[in-house]
Every structure is written in structure tokens, then in C-alpha cells.
């Protein structure tokens, strides 16, 4: 046969078998726990006690989900996870908006309006990202107390905003650095000022990086446990803290199905975010990473 056109490639070559074999094994390894959680959450307790954790439910029941959402008890409070969910939403929305708004302006200023000491300022901000949270927990309690925000949702919002600052500023600065400098110069010749350039030129062309920032912040803040348990009162506990309290309650029988349903419910928000925006997420990360 004379070679012509695309080179034929065998479907079951050794590389292909190796490649797809590895991928399938790894995918199964990661998907299996999720599978166990889902099937367990759909079983009744008698069926769980049989111990076949991989078996699909014989009798599908949604009762554990209802109970996890609306009836599960933490201490004397039997409202389920629903209250924690709304608490988390109330913490999440202002934290995300505030942190991204401030960090994007920070990044923009550091990328385009270099001032004396801007590099030093940036370095200090980045170093902040490497200091373990634990060191700052107690000082923050005192600061919040002095500000009158301790035990308040807004105190937690402030904490989330501050801790999101280094990584978000880095993200935005790198993105804005990759915007051609001449665009910025042209806008200055056209008489646009600091805010004019930010709102009219930079914002409209940086949707991908905003999506990345939103994803980072939503998942980060939603999954936060430490700050939530330290800086809020039980009535304001976010969903993660409440989940812990439900799952780890020592009284009564362990309702594995309810625990699984509660965990899945808590993880639902980040999960949806990832599925809905996976592509944009990857694109934004790449865009931010190209130039430093």
C-alpha cells in the first residue's frame, strides 16, 4: 500500500490500552466514593445495616434527603441543614462581591498604575498568602471584638474578604498585566482616568478572570469551616459547621443515609459551580498564568 493521507493508527495499540486503562482506573477511584454516597443516601436504614455498601438501593427512598434538609437535629435545634444553607448564602454573597471588587481594583492598580513602592506592596500582599491562618485566628478575634463585629455575619464577611485578597489580587494583577499596555495608553490619550479605564475598558474585557475569581471564592467560602465556627454564633453557623454537627452528633443512632444526603447537599453548590463553568475556569486560569 502506498502511504497517502493520514497515517493509520491502530485502535488497540499498547499506548492506547495503557492510556485509557489508567484513565478508567483513576476515574473509578475518584468516582467510587461519590457513588457510595449517592446509593447510601437513597437507602433506608434496614438496608444499610445489611452492609452491602456498593449495592444499589432495592427500595429507593428520598426520606433521608428530606430529613437532612429540614428535620435533622443539632443539639436542641431540629431544623435540618436548611438554616445553615441560608446562613451560608448570606455569608457568601457579600463576601464574594466585596472581595472580588476590592481585589480587581487592587490588581488593576498594581498592573497599570505603578506607583513608588507598588512592587514592595505587592510582595507583602503575596507573602501574606503564605502565613498559616492559625497564627492570625486569635488576633482577628480581638480585632473583630474591638470593631464590634465579633459573632456577627459581617465579621465573617470581613475575614473572608481579607483572606481572599492575596490570591485574588495576584490573579487580577497577572490578568491585567497581560492586557496590551498600548490599550491603556490609548485610553489615557482619550482622556479616561483611573476609574474610567477600569470600568469602560478593563472590566468589559475581563469576564474570564472574573468567572475564575467567582469560582475560587464561592467554593472557598462555601467550603470554609474554620472561620465559620470561630467567628460566628451557633445561630449564624454556615452549612459546613452545621453539617459537622449533624454528622458528628454523639447521641442516638448513626443515620448514615441522612449523613450522606446532608454531605451531598452541602457539596452541591461548589459541584454545580464546577459543572456549569468548567471550561471558563480552565480558560481563565490559563489566561492568568501566562504572564507574571
Amino acid at each position: 500500500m502506498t502511504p497517502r493521507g493520514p497515517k493509520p493508527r491502530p485502535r488497540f495499540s499498547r499506548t492506547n490500552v495503557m492510556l485509557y486503562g489508567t484513565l478508567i482506573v483513576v476515574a473509578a477511584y475518584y468516582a467510587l466514593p461519590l457513588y457510595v454516597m449517592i446509593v447510601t443516601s437513597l437507602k433506608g436504614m434496614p438496608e444499610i445495616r445489611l452492609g452491602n455498601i456498593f449495592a444499589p438501593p432495592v427500595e429507593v427512598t428520598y426520606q433521608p434527603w428530606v430529613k437532612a434538609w429540614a428535620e435533622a437535629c443539632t443539639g436542641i435545634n431540629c431544623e435540618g441543614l436548611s438554616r445553615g444553607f441560608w446562613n451560608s448564602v448570606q455569608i457568601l454573597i457579600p463576601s464574594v462581591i466585596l472581595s472580588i471588587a476590592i481585589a480587581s481594583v487592587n490588581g488593576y492598580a498594581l498592573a497599570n498604575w505603578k506607583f513608588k513602592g507598588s512592587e514592595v506592596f505587592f510582595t507583602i500582599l503575596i507573602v501574606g498568602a503564605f502565613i498559616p491562618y492559625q497564627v492570625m485566628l486569635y488576633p482577628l478575634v480581638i480585632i473583630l471584638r474591638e470593631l464590634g463585629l465579633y459573632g456577627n455575619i459581617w465579621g465573617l464577611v470581613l475575614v473572608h474578604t481579607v483572606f481572599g485578597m492575596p490570591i485574588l489580587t495576584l490573579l487580577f494583577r497577572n490578568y491585567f498585566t497581560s492586557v496590551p499596555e498600548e490599550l491603556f495608553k490609548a485610553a489615557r490619550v482619550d482622556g479616561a482616568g483611573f476609574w474610567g479605564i477600569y470600568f469602560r475598558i478593563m472590566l468589559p474585557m475581563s469576564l474570564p478572570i472574573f468567572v475564575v475569581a467567582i469560582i475560587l471564592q464561592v467554593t472557598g467560602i462555601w467550603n470554609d469551616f474554620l472561620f465559620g465556627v470561630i467567628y460566628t454564633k451557633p445561630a449564624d453557623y454556615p452549612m459546613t459547621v452545621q453539617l459537622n454537627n449533624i454528622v458528628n452528633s454523639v447521641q442516638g443512632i448513626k443515620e448514615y443515609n441522612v449523613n450522606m444526603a446532608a454531605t451531598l447537599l452541602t457539596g452541591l453548590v461548589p459541584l454545580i459551580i464546577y459543572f456549569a463553568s468548567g471550561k471558563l475556569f480552565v480558560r481563565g486560569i490559563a489566561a492568568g498564568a501566562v504572564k507574571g
Partner: protein
Amino acid sequence: MTSVLVKDLTLKFGALTVLDNLNIDIPEGEFLVLLGASGCGKSTLLNCIAGLLDVTDGEIHINDRNVTWEEPSGRGIGMVFQSYALYPQMTVEGNLSFGLKNARMPKGEIRKRVERAAEILQIEPLLHRKPAALSGGQRQRVAIGRALVRDVDVFLFDEPLSNLDAKLRADLRVEIKRLHHSLKNTMIYVTHDQVEAMTLADRIAIMKGGIIQQLDTPTQIYNRPRNKYVAGFIGSPEINFFEGNVEEGSFVTGDRRFPLAGYAFQEEAPNGPAWLGLRPEHVLSGDAAKGLPVTAKVQIDIVEPMGSDTLAWATLASVPVRIRMDGQAAVSTGDQILIGFDPARASLFDKSTERRI
């Protein structure tokens, strides 16, 4: 009347001096080209005039007003960039009107100016398109339009044609020249392309190392370069250099002696080591070479036909010499031909200072 005046301009980035005590006086309506290799400070100078860079020392005056501390938008300039720098999320119309909106101009006036600029540049059908849907040439037209609507006295061009392909570059070059003829604005144009510089400029400033080497008309720069750098930088194919000595009204190189009768020395003819620069087209061949002050029989080493003309390489006084011949010249490698030139058309430079003598 002076349109742009640059006075003792110095710019330093830390220890690095980018511009060193520059002085330029640009009369109204002049087309000045800043020409130089990359890193010579030409774009930096333009950015200083535009107000996009803070100067370390010196003053910039535009229309007899000291604008050294003025914002770019308050200097009465319009600027065109190499990468076009169009706002990607705005339509062409939005791009053109952005500056006017920032200046809070009434809507009717904005529309009038945008229409006028679109008409001059023939981009009316594109007004509602986004930059991504335009070709390179169209984008650069819009970028010029953005400077045009501002109705300013001084246009600044920062290598506006460098991102375009060769044919478009030639087309737009003519268009910019036409625009200058009809608008009669002062234009300052940065480029590293000597063809653009020669064709567009009223005057060219050749820069190197943050210093203006020569500021003169294209003809003067080409025919009477002030130093060896300018002579070598301008001209394609490049000028030929012979190393030798000026001795008693002759230039001696190797075993050859070129009489310098008719050469216009700057001052009294000095004796001593020097360079002789000879443009490839000033070397004539065949019958035309007969009777010239310097003639020699040489062998052609290489021939580079370029269509409109042919570049031949030969060795004279043990130096490879470029000879520019007619495109139809029947010449091939190994031919023995007679060449000749008149040293009066050459340029002599001092060996140590490299200045014209």
C-alpha cells in the same frame, strides 16, 4: 510657528539613561520621523511628548504652551499605536467617540466628527462592527480615525504600520502622506523602517543611544550623513565602507589611491585615518564608468537580482563592494567588468570620532 518644542529632555530609568538632553524644535505642519534601531529611545521620546511617561528633566511645549506636567488628554495630541490598541468590546463608532465622550462633548458634535473622520478614512460601512471583525488595515484606519476625531494639532504615530504586511504597509503609507497633505497637522512618526522615513518625512531625526545623531531632510541625511552610524543605517542595500587614510587630497586604502578632488570637506582637509563611505548606486559599471576619477577592473563574486535592480558583489581594495546595477543588466558570477565612481559623491568620516570630514 513652533508646534512642538522639546527642551533639554532627559529620561532615566534608575541608572539607565534612555534620553540624554534632547532638543527638538518642530515647526507647525511638519512631518517629523524619528528613526532608529530598536532600543534607541525613539518610542520613549514619543511617549514623553504624549505625556505617557514622566520625564526626569526638561520641558515639553506644544503650541507654545508648557505641557510638561499636563495629562496626555490635555496636551492637544492624538496618538496611533503599533498594535492599533482598539477597545475590543466597543464598535468602531464607540472607539471613535470614546475620547469625545470623556471630554463631555455634546452628542450632535460627536456624531458630526465621527462621520467626518469615517468619511476621510473611508470606514463608514464599518462603523457598527467590532474591531475583531476588521482586517489589519481597517483596524489601523480606525486607530487613525480615533486621533482624527479629537481635532488636535499634533498627531503622534508609534510604528503604526509595523504590524501590517508589506503591500498594505505601502498602501497605508501613501494614505498617511495624503492625510498629512490635506490636514496639514504636525505629525511625529516613529519607525524603524527607513523606507517609511524617507518617503514620509519632511525631516528625519536619526536616533541612537538616546541621542539624536542627525536631524535633517531625507536628502541631506542620505547624501551627506553626519557620521558613520547614520551613513550605515540609512540606505538599502547598505553603504560600502573602505578603511584607509586621507593623504594630501587623496584617500589611500590598501594599494589603491582615490583622488578627492571635488569632495566637499566640512573644513580644511585633514590628513589621517578615515573611513570612506560609498553608496552602491554611486558605483557605475561598463561604459558609464569610463572617464570617472576612479576606475577598476573587477570580478563579480555574487549576483542578487531583485527585479527592479540587481545587486552585484565584487572585491575592490580587498573589501567586498556592493554595486547596484540596472535590473536588466546582463551580468553573472565570474564576469570581469569595469567599475568606476566619483569620490566627490562619497562620504568621508574620521576614523576615531566617526564624524563627517
